[in-house]
């Protein structure tokens, strides 16, 4: 990687810096003129950074904008506003010609290893194409491709085969080899192991870790699997509905989550341990993620949050540093997780009056209140009980 010429050693703080990135997609109506009738706010003001040689894990549920952020960094989608800088160079205003040069340094591995490899090309061509496009193909090009295949744990003889002759895990390795062909510094990994079986997934995760150690790569690792993210990341950004709600080091986010969404997300993820699974207290969120066409005002999580107050609807919470770069965007950050479980359950119960149709909502509320007094946590509205 060191062979790469660094054009401008100008001052920059982070290798990759994303500032206030906004990505909106227009929704067009029918009719002749296809008038824009709304916009999907996929990413709304995301700020994050990536340093050389580290892994930033970006986690969130489907539709939270994590993949869109990854693609907007690569300028595969032109961001609506905001800035993306790599080594201090602004990418959003760059011409396509210049971008091509930048992409030598910034590559992507896609989620689906079946759709991301051209079925009509043998593996040698798939990997060699990147070199040819960038004018790096020389006489020993095939040897270079063979080296790359070896690097990802395949044998160079496989180069003449077509993608369909490989298993899912092997295909993903080919995708990684293609991304590495140009010796990039940053890899955007968009759910690289989600489509793979667990036993195969572990092998690819190990490969990615080895490559990082030997080549000094920085990973922008997008995934929804919390255990994989925990395993591979140095820092973590949790996204919800187009916003980053919490960022921090891995240990800070997993051991002391502060945003109610992070707390709920971690408590919902199942673990392969029967005893802890059966005894753990889960925070059950109510409802679904709201539509990004019309996101809630203020804090976007407030519609599902058990701690929500009036201020959450009126003001968007700014990210506040809780020490060591642990940024949390919440008006009422969580301090005591075990207390939250009870208060979240009560909140869910309040909004949920079904079960027995004859049971009126009033009756449900009466019962909830009697639990509150029995628990002696009802100091004021239950939402603030734990905070």
């Amino acid at each position, binding site marked *: 990687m060191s062979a790469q010429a660094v054009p401008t050693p100008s001052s920059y703080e982070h290798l990759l810096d994303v500032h206030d990135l906004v990505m909106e997609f227009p929704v067009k109506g029918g009719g002749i003129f296809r008038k824009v009738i709304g916009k999907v706010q996929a990413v709304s003001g995301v700020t994050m950074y990536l340093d050389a040689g580290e892994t930033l894990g970006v986690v969130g*549920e489907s539709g939270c904008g994590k993949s869109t952020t990854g693609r907007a960094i690569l300028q595969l989608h032109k961001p609506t506003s905001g800035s993306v800088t790599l080594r201090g160079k602004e990418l959003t205003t760059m011409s396509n010609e210049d971008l091509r040069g930048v992409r030598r340094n910034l590559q992507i591995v896609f989620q689906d290893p079946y759709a991301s490899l051209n079925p009509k090309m043998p593996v040698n061509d798939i990997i060699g194409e990147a070199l040819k496009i960038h004018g790096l193909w020389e006489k020993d090009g095939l040897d270079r491709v063979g080296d790359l295949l070896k690097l990802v744990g395949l044998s160079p003889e496989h180069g003449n085969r077509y993608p369909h002759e490989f298993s899912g895990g092997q295909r993903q390795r080919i995708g990684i080899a293609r991304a590495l062909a140009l010796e990039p510094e940053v890899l955007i990994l968009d759910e690289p192991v989600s489509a793979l079986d667990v036993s195969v997934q572990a*092998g690819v*995760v190990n490969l990615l870790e080895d490559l990082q150690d030997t080549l000094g790569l920085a990973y922008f690792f997008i995934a*929804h699997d919390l255990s994989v993210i925990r395993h591979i990341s140095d820092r973590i950004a949790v996204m919800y509905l187009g916003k980053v709600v919490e960022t921090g080091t891995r240990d800070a986010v997993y051991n002391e989550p502060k945003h109610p969404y992070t707390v709920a997300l971690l408590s919902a993820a199942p673990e*392969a341990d029967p005893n802890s699974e059966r005894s753990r207290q889960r925070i059950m969120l109510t409802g*679904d993620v709201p539509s990004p066409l019309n996101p809630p005002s203020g804090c976007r999580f407030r519609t599902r949050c058990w701690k929500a107050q009036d201020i959450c609807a009126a003001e968007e919470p700014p990210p506040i540093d809780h020490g060591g770069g642990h940024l949390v965007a919440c008006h009422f950050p969580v301090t005591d997780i075990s207390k939250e479980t009870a208060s979240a359950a009560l909140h869910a119960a309040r909004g949920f009056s079904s079960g027995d149709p004859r049971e009126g909502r009033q009756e449900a509320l009466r019962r909830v209140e009697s639990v509150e007094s029995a628990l002696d946590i009802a100091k004021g509205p239950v939402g603030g009980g734990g905070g």
Partner: protein
Amino acid sequence: MTVPPTTPPDDVPGGSVYGPAAEEATELFQIYEPPDGAELAAARGKSISSVGSVEVLKVEDLTVGFPTEDGLVRAVRGVSYSLHEREVLGIVGESGSGKSVSSMAVMGLLPKGARITGDISFRGTNILSMSKQEQRSLRGRKIAMIFQDPMTAMNPVYTVGFQLAEAVLSHEVMSKKAAMARAEEMLNLVGIPQPKERLNSYPHEFSGGMRQRAMIAMAVINNPDVIIADEPTTALDVTVQAQILEKLIEVKDAFNAAIVLITHDLGVVAGMAHRTLVMYAGRPVELGKTEDVFYSPRMPYTAGLLGSIPSAGETGRLRPITGAPPSLINLPDGCPFSPRCPLATDICRTVEPELAPTDAPDHLGACHHWDRLAAAPDPTAFFRTESEARR
């Protein structure tokens, strides 16, 4: 037909420390749980072990083959299990292990070309020897199915209410109005707000989680004895998955149904299943109480699967299983796992081990060397040494 109460009284943690009011409320809202871990575990342990003694479903030596141009694909090669009332049996395995195909055989949903042998009996009657007519009356009424993708499992051009009512009307003589009322009741039961209005919605108007709730409602609308849930939460996000699994257990208890839970997610099985069946290359390789299978695996494949999952405490290298599953057309001699197995010896490459009792009579394993796993302090360590040696 009467619907049992939504909340079965025996699921309530008894003798709440918070007095009668709290006890009353726990009965109403199962989501609330007292913070005392030990008491909670005891209460949950009680509810999870309440399995009946009556056998509702028995599968014996089931094999399924699909003839293709390249030869016979032996998708399932001798699966046997029994399912008792109110039991949750988890079937885990990777793609192509035959877990879905074996349950499709139980439902009678396999294509015509499939070659099925063996016995599948529901409450003592063999399903495979039944007429199409009889099979149809069983399917959807006594044995119901929840599919992975609710968007494709529902018909997009009919309302959810119509499809739910259709499920009732195809098995019972009833007025349309009564069937709709029943559909509304079911939607309410699975926690869909404003069920009356929602009856007139189309599947695309529901979110993923709500659609899966509607699928559960459709599955239980005829009060089935067995629910086959094929990857019911794989398409859902974690927070929604937690809601759906909770609802599934609640509904199962309300209807006294048993569940066959098919998944590749070991975490889901760990939390829900009484017993776990692990499949590999079309065969069951381990069957036992969930705790036994997870804490003391007796088949290297299970140990390998458990070692492949990144766990909370460890940050070291993962221990993947090397290689890939064998082709179902051209299986290796002996144990199908032997090419990938760190414990394999000559006998493994010649004789395929039978699923047989290991150290406990109810813990079955198909491995010649299960005693070596039993003797090891950490069964997953076999894979560690191997993968580290390769580095």
